[in-house]
């Protein structure tokens, strides 16, 4: 879909610019600039980072957060928030380990069960928010605590069982090939998810979703079933969290801490991508770029030998700075807003 269509009367360059702005636009060009700057920083510290194998390692590491950020994007752009994804990732990994318990043959059924559980969590989040009119911040905070608590209660803080080798493949495995040595499955999954997300956002559902986040009443008066659209966004977010759980489980293994804090990392990523809290603005590509930027920043911290405990503070600063920056952008006196706007003269 990025392929420039044959230019009609407009020049090819403006056509490409148009496609670029459609993809990256919405005031989110900043995140791409930031991503490039951070990559340049990492490269300056450690030139070998740009070699394919270490880039692939970076992707493997970043994939879960990108997937989570895409899920979070659907919810945020509809004007809500999903705090439950971190706990959900943790719970899903623990469920997988306990139920598979090292038996290869159980991989398929357990994956299916995880999907069902993910959909269920999303449905509960969505329906409580839309039908019972509980603010999503509260709904998903509650869900986060319930999942976290249930997880702790069940495992006593020490998850049991083990993941199967097949289960771990998507997160850690890949295809042997030249240059990169190992093309990670997670990269392929990531590409597929990003393409699917972009397609969804260009479909009627995606457009309706953004419209709901922008102006719920206008959307409802246009025949949108707002509750359904928003609930579906929560389901998408939970399904993405489930996929992230598979990737993390494979990559990092099973611990009691898995998934902790990921909800905030995902929100940081989305906000950094210029997606406005409150909904209605921002692209899914920018959310993805936000996630890569957060991961790249953490990589840079590693290069600088900063302790990993600095991450929450850094995330906090990023969230505040990104939202403040977006607010500033929005409050700039955009001249065309009043009645004197530069319009072509009428005939």
């Amino acid at each position, binding site marked *: 879909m990025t392929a420039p269509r044959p230019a009609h009367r407009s020049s090819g360059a403006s056509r490409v610019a148009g496609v670029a702005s459609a993809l990256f636009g919405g005031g989110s060009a900043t995140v791409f600039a930031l991503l490039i700057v951070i990559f340049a920083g990492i490269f300056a510290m450690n030139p070998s980072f740009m070699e394919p194998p270490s880039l692939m390692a970076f992707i493997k590491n970043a994939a879960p957060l990108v997937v989570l950020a895409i899920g979070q994007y659907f919810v945020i752009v509809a004007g809500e928030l999903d705090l439950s994804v971190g706990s959900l990732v943790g719970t899903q990994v623990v469920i997988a380990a306990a139920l598979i318990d090292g038996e290869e043959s159980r991989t398929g059924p357990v994956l299916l069960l995880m999907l069902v559980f993910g959909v269920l969590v999303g449905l509960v989040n969505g329906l409580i928010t839309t039908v019972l009119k509980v603010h999503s911040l509260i709904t998903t905070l509650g869900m986060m605590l319930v999942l976290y608590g249930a997880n702790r209660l069940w495992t006593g803080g020490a998850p049991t069982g083990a993941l199967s080798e097949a289960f771990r493949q998507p997160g850690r495995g890949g295809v042997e090939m030249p240059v990169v040595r190992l093309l990670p499955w997670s990269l392929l999954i990531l590409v597929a998810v990003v393409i699917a997300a972009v397609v969804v956002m260009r479909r009627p559902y995606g457009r309706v979703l953004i419209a709901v986040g922008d*102006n719920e009443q206008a959307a409802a*008066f246009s025949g949108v079933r707002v509750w359904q659209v928003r609930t579906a966004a929560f389901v998408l977010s939970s399904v993405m969290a489930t996929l992230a759980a598979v990737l993390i489980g494979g990559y990092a293994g099973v611990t009691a801490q898995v998934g902790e804090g990921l909800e905030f990392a995902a929100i940081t990523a989305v906000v950094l991508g210029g997606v406005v809290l409150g909904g*209605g603005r921002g692209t899914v590509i920018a959310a993805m770029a936000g996630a890569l930027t957060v991961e790249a920043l953490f990589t840079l911290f590693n290069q600088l030998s900063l302790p990993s405990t600095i991450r929450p503070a850094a995330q906090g600063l990023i969230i505040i700075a990104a939202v403040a920056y977006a607010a500033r952008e929005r409050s700039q006196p955009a001249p065309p807003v009043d009645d*004197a706007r*530069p319009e072509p003269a009428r005939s």
Partner: protein
Amino acid sequence: MTASTPEAAGGGAAVSTHLLRMRGISKSFLGVRVLHGVDLDLRAGEVHALVGENGAGKSTLMKILAGVHQADSGTVELDGAAVAFEHPLQAQQARVSTVFQEFNLLPDRTVAENVFLGREPRTRGMVDARRMNADTAQLLADLGLTWLTPQAPVRSLSVAGQQIVEIVKALSYDARIISMDEPTAALADEEVDLLYRLIARLRERGVAILYVSHRLKEIFDLCDRVTVLKDGALVDTVDTATLRPDELVRMMVGRPISSFFPDKLPGTAPGDVRLRVTGGGNDQLDGIDLEVRAGEITCLAGLQGSGRTEIAHALFGIARFTRGTVQVDGRTVRLRSPRQAVRTGLALVTEDRKAEGLALNQSVAANARLVLDAVDPRRAAARARRIPGLLSSLDLVARGPDQEVRFLSGGNQQKVVLAKWLATEPSVIVLDEPTRGIDVGAKHRVYTLMRELAADGVAILMVSSELPEVIGMADRVIVLRDGRIAGELPGGTTEEAVMALATGQVPGGPMS
């Protein structure tokens, strides 16, 4: 009320003094000139209309006077002394106040707290509420607004009441000049009268009023002189006493509008009943019997709160009729949601464009196909192919289909809303205040569109509080009062006949 001429309005103000002289005001935004070389004079004690189509530069000129924007070139003299306001506060200190369309009031605070916001009288550091209320009461009494209580929370006031609080607030700074941006846009007819009286009082006190409005009637009722802007340039400043309405329209649009309300297109004839409501009622409406025929423009008239919008909402499933039946094309339907209404072939252009009609941060294209995307996603892409043609036939002025609608003028935003509903090919279209807050050219386009739709056999139900438009467009006028149908009048009726039914008084009697 009778509008007093400047000569009659004594009040001791020297009428011919130029309180304000703006000369050669130019302003560009991002390299686009929105004002070039505009002159404006205001005399003490005059009401001076500032008119022009959207995009003519009225708001920019007003904002330069208010200190919100700064002119690139040109001079502003106040009482003969050159001034340059860098900030709205400086304008306020120079006793130049502005009442914007969006109210800057705190709804949960009282009238007095709003009037004295930020400069409350204090005793030993504590806000002296008693003195504040007394001062406000004095201000209100001076203006003959004794029905307003200083202690009343602003939320409890009508829109007109809130508008008046804004003006009182402006006056509390002892303003010599007050500019008002479409002060009647949100007011019902009977509330406009309140504003007229207040303006007459201000004029007597020698306050100069700069009055921005789209409504020609108000300009001729209220204003002494009118300054017309077009495309950022001054067309002329003329006395309203020597001006005819059609001349003013021609100055504004730069071309004559042959007939402001276009004639019916040939071949337009009332057809089958498309929409029939029998005994419709809910907690706000009762005994609503209504028929809307194909090819016919039926108009719902009545005062604010008489049930006009409530009928539109009940028809569209936003509210519901709890009694009675609704038939569309002969089939009895239950309209429980806008979605069902759309599927039944109804469309509703809502009264409040920004809150209910548009997703302002989305593009023209996204807004125009929102209903299709929502209700018929599978065929949305195919059906949306009509939209570019619809938009261009409505003369939409926008940079392109990707431009966000918040950057469009009111008239162009309304065209996007209209295209959104036309794309659904409705058999009945309900238009709630379709020309509110849009400029003359766009109004004319909406009227011709209604004629075109009627000729195509669409049934049109229009809700309007602008009587000239009701009289000029409707084939039948249904007048509502207190949630019931007060009577029906044929097309071409008079404003007096409509008002008589709307207020329940005999023609010629007192109107309020």
